């Protein structure tokens, strides 16, 4: 899905540091999502956004901050990274919400030492 890109693809950082994961989509989709994927847990929703300037918490929002000033961008920030936040992070988007297929980016593999 070339229309949704995540950066960086890989990131190593230290505990306590702030790190921002970027997500950009070119489809003008209204909804965007951030998930983390850990072994045995599948995909867990961190935050989602229904439109620009509208965000809401998912299952595991603690320790994360999001913003959506523009429809096409949905950055995820770890304000003070912890080892438990080591994971693969996926961004996804849909046109109008949960009744539409979600299109995923390639993911960011984040390691916190």
């Amino acid at each position, binding site marked *: 899905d070339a229309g949704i890109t995540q950066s960086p693809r890989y990131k190593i950082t230290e505990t306590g540091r702030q790190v921002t994961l970027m997500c950009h989509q070119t489809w003008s989709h209204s909804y965007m999502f951030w998930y983390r994927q850990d072994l045995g847990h599948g*995909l867990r*929703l961190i935050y989602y956004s229904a439109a620009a300037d509208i965000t809401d918490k998912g299952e595991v929002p603690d320790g994360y901050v999001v913003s959506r000033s523009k429809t096409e961008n949905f950055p995820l920030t770890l304000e003070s990274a912890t080892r438990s936040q080591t994971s693969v992070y996926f961004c996804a988007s849909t046109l109008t919400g949960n009744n539409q297929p979600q299109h995923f980016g390639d993911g960011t593999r984040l390691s916190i030492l």
Partner: protein
Amino acid sequence: GQQVMQIPQYQHVQEGEDFTTYCNSSTTLSNIQWYKQRPGGHPVFLIQLVKSGEVKKQKRLTFQFGEAKKNSSLHITATQTTDVGTYFCAGGFNKFYFGSGTKLNVKP
């Protein structure tokens, strides 16, 4: 909160054998979606079921949505090595929840 449970966690089959993964929710779902994730890849949408009792087929894949809209299954007939990956169901009403996935390994 609402959870979508998926079993089994792993399945190892010989090529040509059938495979089934099951998805269950404690509450009624508005719809259910199925995704496939290849090793090292990202989830890719396969199909969406909306109606009670709905059955859809995609070649060797058969998807079912339960009458009560609380469970679903994905059945693969005569698996091939290209079927290797993790299969996820996802469902909800206001918010969407992914199951923990079933990792399928196919031995040639």
